[in-house]
Each structure stands twice: as structure tokens, then as C-alpha cells.
């Protein structure tokens, strides 16, 4: 049964499975997203975590921030890890060998929820093969990408999620460079094209939208992908109190559009209907420039010789927004 959450206060008083007093940078969006994903359900949640900021900041022996079962193996295998844990659950349930509490819950018709968290490094890049394999096989879990568009844990190197024009430590802006050269990978569509029953993009600044999508994800049968914008105070270089404000600029400029893709499918992965819904339409779509101006990683774009990259980005955002609206209208 979907948990009823009416307001932020209620959400903040939920049964906490994640200790916020951890080693993450002040203002890190990861903490907000993870806590809300775990609190969006009353069912037990079991977590797999790719190597990255979240993992290194929350499970440093002898301490743990996780009051729910959690596993980290490596950088590139969170998806197969959670798939194997979920497979173990299925076989032990079938064989009647689940631990008592889990068996009791299963007898009541409630299942443990299986969630994996990875950064964009562990998701778009090094963990993509494992992610793709797990989605193709149709395991029952939710993968949440904490997308901060950079390898933040290791000092801000570019990833395939880094947007064009961003200055990172391996795509630095300089006398003859405007920073990252390529647009980011369209991970949401790629995962939807795996035939996932539910795929969505979220931002912690729109918490109701995020919770609603996460809850849809928990209800879906099969692999679910949630791409969460995780504004990074350290690498995007904004003040730590501005996390939500910067996230809102991303959403309102449509740099980070909020939408979902639903594949009506059966257990064999046959898709009968695909539907894309835009879940947030800015009343006043602000120029991309305002989003960029809030983050020193894009500071160099405001030099005269780099202004054309801002124009290019605006064009790319407009085209994508247009395409999303067309897909929504066409119901495909």
C-alpha cells in the first residue's frame, strides 16, 4: 500500500533508516534524496550502493549511517548486486527459507523493497554494463542515480553526464578551452528503451513530485530507473545553503526537466504502450543563463569568447523541451 505523505513535516517524522549526520559535504543533495527515497515507503528497504560519495561518507568502519541492510561491493556493480540480493529473496521465499521477520512480512503479502544508489560515474559510465544487463533481465528493483554530473568523490573529473561547457578537473576551462565539449548522455531515454516499466527524472527541490515518482517506482513490477538531480556544492561551486535554489533554477530553465516514461509491459518485457508525462511545467521558463550564472563551474562561459556555448546550450535545452512536449502530446 502506498504510504500517504501530506507535507514535509510528516515526511521528516517518518521512520528514519538513514542517519543524516554523516561525512557528506554540508548542503549535499545526496542526503536529501536518499533520505526521502527511503522514507517514501513503510516497507523494509534493502540497499546496494556503488562506490562514490554516498558510499565513502556513510559506511566508514566501525560506523554506519544505514539502519537498513546495505551492501557495497565496487564502483561498477551496484545494479547486479541489488539484482542478486532480490533474486536471493525470491528463491528463499519460494523455498520457505527467509529469515523470520521477512517471512512474516511476505506472508502478509508485503515484500521487501530493493533499491540501488549510484552516482553518475557508477551509472552512466563504469557501471553502465551491469545496469544495462540487470534491466534487460527484468529484475525487480529500483535504481536511483544521484546525478551530480561529475566524479565528485575523486575531485571533480568529467563524466558522460557532465554538460557541455562545464569546467571539471579533466575538462578544465583554459586559455584555449571552454571546458567539457559534449552534451550529456540521455540516460533517462536509454533506460526507458531497455523496456523498464517506469523511468523518471526528479529534483529534490520538487519534493512532492519526487516522492510521487519514487512511490510509483516502488509499486512497479520490474526494473525502475530514477535519475535524480543532485546539485553538488563542492564541484558546482555554489554556497552550501543554495542547494535547493540551484536545483530550482535547473528545473525552471528546463536544463533538468521533470518527466516520467511509463512502459506498459508484461513480465516478458513485451511493451504494449509507452507514455511520456511532463510532471512539472515551469510557469515562467527562465533562460539557461540564470542557471549557469549561479554556478562557478560555468563562470568562464560568460567571457565574450565563450558566449556562443551559452547560446548553444539554450538551443539544446529548447530542442529537448520541445521534443518532450511533442512526445507527451503524441502519447509515445
Amino acid at each position, binding site marked *: 500500500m502506498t504510504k500517504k505523505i501530506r507535507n514535509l513535516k510528516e515526511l521528516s517524522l517518518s521512520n528514519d533508516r538513514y542517519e543524516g549526520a554523516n561525512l557528506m559535504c554540508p548542503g549535499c543533495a545526496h542526503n536529501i534524496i536518499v533520505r526521502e527515497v527511503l522514507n517514501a515507503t513503510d516497507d523494509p528497504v534493502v540497499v546496494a550502493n556503488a562506490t562514490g560519495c554516498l558510499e565513502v561518507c556513510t559506511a566508514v568502519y566501525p560506523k554506519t549511517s*544505514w539502519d537498513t541492510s546495505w551492501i557495497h561491493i565496487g564502483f561498477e556493480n551496484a545494479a547486479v548486486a541489488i539484482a542478486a540480493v532480490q533474486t536471493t529473496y525470491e528463491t528463499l521465499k519460494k523455498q520457505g527459507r527467509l529469515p523470520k521477520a521477512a517471512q512474516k512480512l511476505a506472508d502478509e503479502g508485503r515484500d521487501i523493497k530493493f533499491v540501488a544508489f549510484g552516482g553518475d560515474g557508477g551509472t552512466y559510465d563504469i557501471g553502465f554494463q551491469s545496469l544495462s*544487463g540487470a534491466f534487460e533481465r527484468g529484475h525487480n528493483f529500483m535504481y536511483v542515480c544521484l546525478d551530480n554530473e561529475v566524479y565528485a568523490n575523486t575531485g571533480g573529473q568529467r563524466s558522460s553526464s557532465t554538460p557541455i561547457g562545464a569546467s571539471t578537473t579533466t575538462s578544465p576551462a583554459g586559455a584555449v578551452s571552454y571546458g567539457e565539449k559534449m552534451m550529456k548522455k540521455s540516460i533517462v531515454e536509454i533506460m526507458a528503451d531497455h523496456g523498464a516499466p517506469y523511468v523518471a527524472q526528479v529534483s529534490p527541490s520538487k519534493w512532492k513530485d519526487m516522492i510521487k515518482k519514487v512511490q510509483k517506482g516502488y509499486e512497479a513490477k520490474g526494473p525502475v530507473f530514477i535519475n535524480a538531480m543532485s546539485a553538488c556544492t563542492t564541484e558546482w561551486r555554489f554556497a552550501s545553503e543554495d542547494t535547493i535554489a540551484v536545483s530550482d533554477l535547473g528545473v525552471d530553465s528546463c536544463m533538468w526537466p521533470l518527466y516520467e516514461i511509463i512502459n506498459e509491459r508484461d513480465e516478458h518485457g513485451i511493451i504494449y504502450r509507452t507514455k511520456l508525462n511532463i510532471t512539472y511545467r515551469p510557469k515562467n521558463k527562465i533562460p539557461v543563463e540564470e542557471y549557469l550564472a549561479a554556478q562557478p563551474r560555468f563562470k568562464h562561459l560568460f567571457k565574450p569568447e565563450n558566449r556562443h556555448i551559452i547560446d548553444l546550450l539554450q538551443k539544446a535545452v529548447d530542442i529537448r523541451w520541445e521534443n518532450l512536449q511533442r512526445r507527451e502530446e503524441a502519447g509515445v
Partner: protein
Amino acid sequence: MAKKYELNEIEVWDGNTAVSHALRQARIDVVAAYPITPSTPIVQNYSKFLADGYIDGEFIMVESEHSAMSGCVAAGAAGARTATATSSQGFALMVEVLYQASGMRIPVVLTVADRALAAPLNVNGDHSDMYLGRDAGWINLCAYNPQEAYDLTLMAFKIAEDLDVRLPAMVHQDGFICSHTAQNVRPLSDAEAAKFVGEYKPVNSMLDISNPVTHGVQTEEDWHFEHKARQHNDLMNSKNVIKRVFDEFKTLTNREYNLVDNYKLEDADIAIVAIGTTVESARIAADKLRDEGIKAGVLGIRVLRPFPFEEIVNALSNVKAIATMDRSAPGGTFGMLFNEISGAMIGSGKSPIILNYIYGLGGRDTTIEQLIEIYRQLDDCARSNQRKYPLQQFIGLRGPKLSFF
């Protein structure tokens, strides 16, 4: 409930078939696997057993060996008995996760049909993959024939899962020479095998929601060393559990296993030390030398890790000249067996003549004649009490003789 598989008292099985039946009989909860030559038939047979209703557990046909081992580690953490099979490049792709399996103390069983590592690409048997993983913190058991591959696979579960051990275990067999060579194998019945292996005892199961657990933490300079030291300590001490399981297996089957497999070493002057099918060839060569009155013996490494130091030293204590046979490209130094046997002998105050032979790379056949020639060199050294040959020689190699040191 899985169907019972009717087996004959004696089956004609190759190593892969033998291992796949051992895996079936061990009642594994989750197998995550990716096929690779020459271990592919293990994965195929297991799939067929599942399709025909002989298996209760789950099989995840993953997209790579990296995911295969990752899946096994995660399933193990969730409370599953788990195993997989691989060879060569697949083994190499697993290496990162081999260390994670042992460091996280997940008793995965990995059956390896050992094969050369590219480049050049080669599908045939040698021990390059075994050597690549030897420091990964796993128990390493070595079979020389299909019967042993079957027996050791069953025993591997019991050893790895023992609560005093809780470490992953590999069972090695030579690619093709053992994995694809059919021989008589006496299997246990399904019921006997299940009883021997026993029920899986989960430790810190992730699915015990009344007691949440954190698996795979970070430790830096303040705790990492203690974790690795404890892990090494438990691997060293697993020797006792291995011996106990070998004894229990002997009681059940009358088939005897020891940490090292000694052949006519009691009075031997010269000995070959080897791993795998070559041990059996060396026994034939030793007998031929003995026909001439030369006291030759063979030491087969049955348990490579934990290293059977005392057993090796005891078995070789009166041997005058030893050939250490390494079936892996030594990569710029001596072969592993040379280093480890030399270390063991010197460490116990012995100073026999020890030579290193590199052989059989990429499936190159090693003949009885070549082994006899090795014994003749050893005999020459033993009689004169002089090292008359280079420390390292390549045997069975085309072209001019290659040797070093």
C-alpha cells in the same frame, strides 16, 4: 522441490560434467554465471538441470564475469549459498571482485577450468589464471582428474562455509586435459551429497530485516590492516578445517585427500613438484625411473592456499634435488612454485638443489619423455651434489633452448 537425479555407481564424466553435478547436488541458492571456454559446459549443464527441474535455486545468466562474481558476493551477503564457474579472461575480469569476496568474507565457490591468458589469445589449458588469483585471499584446491574435480567441489562448500573459515574457495582443474576428458567417476547419491555438504548457514543476512547489516564498508589506515590480518589469519587456520573435511569425506567415500599429494617420496632422492594433470604424468615418469633403480617421487599440490608449508617440508626433507614445475609465464622472474618451494625449504633449514621448469603454456603437451628428462637432470644434480643446469629452463619449446640464471 527439485527432482532426484538418478546416477549410476560409476559414471563416465569429463571434469566439467563432474563439476556441474557437484554444483547441482550442493543445492545452491543462487548461481550467477557467464560462459567461457573451457568451463562453458558447467554453465550449460547447470542451465539444463534447472530447465529439467533438478534445481530449486535461481540461476542468473549475467552479462559478464565481473557481474557473475559480483552477483555471487551480493547473493552470499543476502544469505544464499552461491557458486559460479569460469576460466582465463573471465577469471581475469573477475579479479577485482575476487578480492571483494574474500575481504567481505562471503563463502563463494568458484570452479575454474584453468586456461592461458591472452595475448596471444589461446583457449587451451595452463595455470595463468590460477596464478593471477593466487593472492586474492581464497582457498585454492587443485584437482588432477574428473573424480577429484567432483569431490573437491563438494568439499569446497563445506570448507568455505565453515563458521571458522567463512572464506571463498576455488576448485581448479586443467582446461581441456581434465575439463574435457571423460573418465570413470563415482558420484555420491543426491541425498548423500546433500547430507555431506549440509544446510547453508547464513551469517549477517541482509534479508534479516529485524537485524539490519552493513556489508562492504570503507576502512582506511586506522582499520584496514587489522581486517586484512584477520583475513589472512583465518585463511592460514582454515588448514585445520580442510583436513577435517578431507577426513569426513574419506569416511564417507574411502577416497583420501591430503594438503599435498605425495607419491613415493618416503625414500626419494629426486622429486617433481607440480599442480594439475601433470602430477599424474609425473607419477608414470617416476615409476619408469624407479624401474632403473633411481628413487624418484612426485609432490602434487592439492591445496595451494593456504600454503601447506609443514607438509611440503616434511615430504621433501630428504630429497636431494627438486624440480618445481610452473605452467604459467613467469613474467620476468622465477615461477611461483620455485619461489614458494625454495622459501619453504630454506625457511626450514634445508638446502636441496631446486630447479625451475616452465612448461605447457597455452596447452602445449607435456610428454612423459620430457618429465623423464627432468628427472635425469635432477638425478645428475643429486649424484654430484652440484647444480649442473640453469635454475630456470623452458621445456617443450620450439627453437633454441631457453634458460635463465
